[in-house]
């Protein structure tokens, strides 16, 4: 691209790229493609796009998840979407799976034994299920006897829970607060 284009034109290109993508379009990838745009200019354009789509108040909006932009439906429309499209298998996770996912998200990379110790129960079945659902993945082995697998959460995990990065999870400080509250609650 040689001529400097107007912001409006960039917006059209960018939103079309996002529209046809089946995965969030990474900010880094956009930076790499629109070389004539300063990162700050690109950010401004993206921010405006998000706001403009949101202002339209239509059924879907532009959202930043897992380091990229994607069009996603508004959460209050799910009943009709599922009702209309009967083949959709609604996403479901058991309590156990959610627990293992929570532990993995905060303690990664970690081994099965680490998970078992926190939950006090064997979690290998649940870990396999989460691997199948691509919410976690194996990332090497721990350098201890037995060389157990290390598990981490995936980009799909961030996409599934609508997080931009792991930093969007409640911070460890907030977690400590939770711990304190637990003492009072119980």
């Amino acid at each position, binding site marked *: 691209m040689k001529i400097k284009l107007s912001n409006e034109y960039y917006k059209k290109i960018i939103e079309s790229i996002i529209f046809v993508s*089946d995965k969030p379009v990474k900010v880094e990838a956009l930076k790499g493609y629109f070389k004539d745009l300063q990162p700050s200019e690109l950010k401004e354009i993206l921010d405006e796009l998000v706001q403009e789509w949101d202002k339209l108040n239509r059924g879907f909006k532009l959202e930043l998840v897992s380091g990229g932009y994607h*069009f*996603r439906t508004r959460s209050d429309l799910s009943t009709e979407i599922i009702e209309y499209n009967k083949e959709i*298998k609604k996403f479901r996770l058991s309590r156990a799976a959610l*627990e293992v996912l929570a532990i993995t998200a905060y303690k990664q990379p970690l081994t099965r034994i680490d998970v078992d110790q926190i*939950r006090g*129960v064997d979690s290998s079945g649940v870990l396999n299920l989460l691997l199948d659902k691509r919410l976690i993945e194996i990332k090497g082995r721990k350098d201890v006897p037995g060389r157990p697998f290390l598990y981490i959460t995936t980009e799909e995990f961030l996409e599934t829970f*609508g997080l931009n990065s792991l930093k969007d999870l409640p911070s460890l400080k907030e977690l400590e607060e939770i711990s304190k509250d*637990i003492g009072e609650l119980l």
Partner: protein
Amino acid sequence: MEQLELPYVVKLNIYQGPLDLLLELIKKNKVDIYDIPIAVITDQYLEYLEIIKLTNMETVGDYLSLAAELGYIKSRMLLPLPQEDEDENIEDPRAELVRRLIEYEKYRKIADELNEMDVLGREIFQAGTDYYDEFGDPDVETEMMKTDMWSLIEAFRDFCKRRQLDFSEDLRFELESYSIRERGQEILYILRDKGQILFYDIFGDKPKKIDLVITFIALLEIVKDGLAGISQSGKHENIEIIFIGEDKIE
């Protein structure tokens, strides 16, 4: 047609494990987690254990070990504390358990928080996502990138899942039909001929468990020896094995 009446089934609270059960008991009894009345809680815990024994034999082991721990704490609580000397740092026998309970409760809370979020495929939807096929489409062609052993291991898991291999019928003792080295030679033979082959194709149609294991190890050996490379077009995509050469062998 008239339905036969099902036998009366008592549905129990399903606990996620011994710690989960213990936390529920503490909540139910409205006791202070830092001052758990061990005797009372242990008795109730053991009562539940009896029910779990009847309904869920598989998980009973996990519950038993905590029961033993509770018994141990209970016995230590009964022992008189040593005279209060300079050494005042004698820890409450319950302290370690309380720490574990609080740690676990923390993650139970986060699990709840995760569950309350707007989840893709439940509250939120997007175009292009396959909500129907659990394992996605492996035959999508995209740009090649280098892959690592972990992808191979994941692909191996996928392969077993996909074929829904039932290993239970393989519980027979047989002489090993061939060695890893032989299998390796076989794979190399195919590779030399075809140049490259898909990961899923090297296992054949109805492999036995031992064949799968030997083939997989043989493949790892070949890659380790630098005789073949592996490449994958993207995460969770099909893995290709590409012939490099075997000067060393010939």
